[in-house]
Structures are given as C-alpha cells and as structure tokens.
C-alpha cells in the first residue's frame, strides 16, 4: 500500500501530512459535538467523512477551515494552525451556499479571481462551458443541481492543498451526482488531498482511499477502503448500515 503512495507522490513532494487533527473537542453550549477527534490525512488522498446527521461532520469541516474555534485540541494544515495563511491553502465547499442569487456567473468568476491567487480561471471557464452555462446567466435562474455543479466547479478550480467538500452530492439527481464525482476525480492532484463528507455512501465509496466514521462526536472507524472491505467482507455502505443501525 505504501509503495503505491510513494510512487504516485514522487520524491519531490513533502511527505508531511496535509491535515493532522489531535484530540479535538467542541461544544455548543452544554452540548458536546466533537469529543477528542484525532486523525491524519496524508498527501494525495481522497477521504470520506461519514456519519449520520448531527454527528459533527459539518462542525469538523468548519473547525478545519477556521470558521469556528475548538474548545481544545489542535488542527494542523500542512503543519500550520488554522489562520489567515491556511485560508489560502484550503478550498471549502460549505453545506449551504454563500453566493448571492442575483450574481451572474462572470461576477462570481471575478470574485474568485480577486479573492484567491490560486484560482484557475481558465479551468473554471472550460468546465462551465462543458455544461453550457453562459457567463451572463444568473444563479437565480439555475436549478438546484446546476447551482451545486457551479459551486463545485468554483471550489475545484482552485489549486489548494486541501479541499473540504461538505455534502457535495446531497440533493442532486444521479446524473448530476456522476458529473460531480467525475469533476472531483478529474481535478484531483496527487499533491493535495480531499475530504468529502456525505451520507450517500454507496454512490461514492469507490472514489475514497480512506474513510472516517464519525459517531456521537468520536471517530469510530478510520481505515483504508480496501482493507475495510477485506476485513469485514462488506462494502463501506454495508458497514455503515451496521455501525449506525437505528
């Protein structure tokens, strides 16, 4: 397994983990959301963050992206604590949109070009034209599925170290889902890693190297997809259904 990773990464790239999370705790009021979460994501990985609704997936993503602060514990992105510096290293697709409905595609492209030095405008334009989305169309006029595609294109057009995709395939039809997964695979570079949260496991489990099961604020399973499949003799989806049986 490790030989494979080394081969893909080549020798020139730093071997330091893209993301290191240690004993992370976070409560909202009296309600604990994360209780001592710890894991490491090496470079060149696509990792699934899996868990039922309300298990803390989105909170974890917000903490990594620096939108909210932990009560205790540590997060390191390429060895750096969440800060202004790490904002330029992380490309984050939040669960809910933050783009204004009245904006035209070209306004949004300008916004991203201004905001992010690593935004690849040409790549974004090419992907939008593949979808026949014109620069003059407004977000307001688009279907939910198209909006989700546009946002994913924007996020994946950055050349970031770490991509955080919070439920990128929630609420879209299977064709749109396939497009989104393809876009993720196409834009994935061996020098970065992608953390994807989802509860629609069956559709996406073949694109993960590694999965993290989060339950009641704790990591209950952390492993390589193929190792889990051979250890448990079932798919990640099957294991999920067993672990989180209601």
């Amino acid at each position, binding site marked *: 397994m490790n030989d494979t990773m080394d081969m*893909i990464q080549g020798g020139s790239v730093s071997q330091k983990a893209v993301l290191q999370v240690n004993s992370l705790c976070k409560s909202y009021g009296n309600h604990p959301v994360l209780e001592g979460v710890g894991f490491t994501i090496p470079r060149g990985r*696509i990792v699934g963050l899996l868990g039922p609704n309300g298990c803390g997936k989105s909170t974890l993503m917000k903490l990594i992206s620096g939108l909210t602060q932990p009560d205790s514990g540590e997060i390191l992105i390429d060895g750096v604590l969440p800060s202004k510096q790490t904002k330029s290293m992380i490309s984050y697709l939040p669960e809910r949109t933050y783009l204004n409905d009245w904006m035209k595609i070209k306004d949004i492209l300008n916004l991203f070009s201004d905001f992010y030095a690593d935004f690849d405008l040409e790549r974004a334009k090419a992907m939008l034209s593949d979808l026949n989305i014109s620069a003059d169309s407004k977000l307001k006029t688009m279907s939910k599925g198209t909006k989700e595609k546009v946002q994913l294109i924007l996020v994946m057009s950055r050349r970031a170290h770490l991509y955080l995709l919070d439920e990128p395939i929630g609420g879209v039809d299977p064709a749109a889902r*396939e497009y989104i997964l393809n876009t993720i695979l*196409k834009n994935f570079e061996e020098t970065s890693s992608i953390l994807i949260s989802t509860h629609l496991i069956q559709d996406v489990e*073949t694109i993960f190297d590694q999965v993290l099961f989060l339950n009641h604020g704790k990591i209950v399973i952390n492993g390589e997809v*193929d190792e889990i499949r051979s250890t448990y003799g079932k798919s990640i989806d099957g294991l999920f259904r067993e672990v989180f049986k209601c």
Partner: protein
Amino acid sequence: MTWSFDDNLPIYLQIIRILKSDLARGKYQPGEKLPAVRELALEAGVNPNTMQKALAELERDGLVKSQRTAGRFVTEDKEKIMEISKTLAYDEIAKMVENISSLGYEKKDILQLLERYLAEQEA
C-alpha cells in the same frame, strides 16, 4: 458509465479481474499502450490510487510493464495472455461445478450434462 463492483471484495482486486478479462478479450492487444492511470480511474469511477495499486499488481505478474516516461504497455508475451484466459475460464468452471453440485448432481453427471447442453445448442 462507470464499472460496477461487488460489495464484499476489495475494489483493487475487482479492478484486476476486470483488466485481466479486458486483456483476455483482446480489448488491449499484446504490446499495446494502456490508457494513463487517471484516465482508467475516471472510466472506472475509482480513486486513482486504487487503480494504480491494481496496475502495480498486474505489473508484478508480468502482464503489463512500465516504461519510465512512455507509459504502461501490455506484455508482448502472448502465452501469458492465453494463461489469463485459461485461468478466468477455470474460475467460471469452478463456479459452475459448485452450483450444479449443490443441486445434487455427481461429478460424472456434470460432464454428461455439459455435453448434452453443448450438443443441443449446436442443433
């Protein structure tokens, strides 16, 4: 459309099996260049690292070989390809024998059944 996978086996093993049958069927000819890892991963809808792992395994078995910058090529050894076809056929026969045995047939009956079936198909 991406490849379809069974639930209970590691994905890289299933990729190996699919690629082997592609070689046996002649989808990729002896000496032919294989598509890049990323391309194959996209086609299959799998993680590039998983595809890489499967290809490395085929390489270890001498079925494909890497040429540093030029890419990966199918072996030119036609016997090796024939060997794959035979192994895959044996796997299918093993499954068939197991299934028919579970219906209560003896080994000698199985051969008879198969012969009769083939004769009927020809007729």
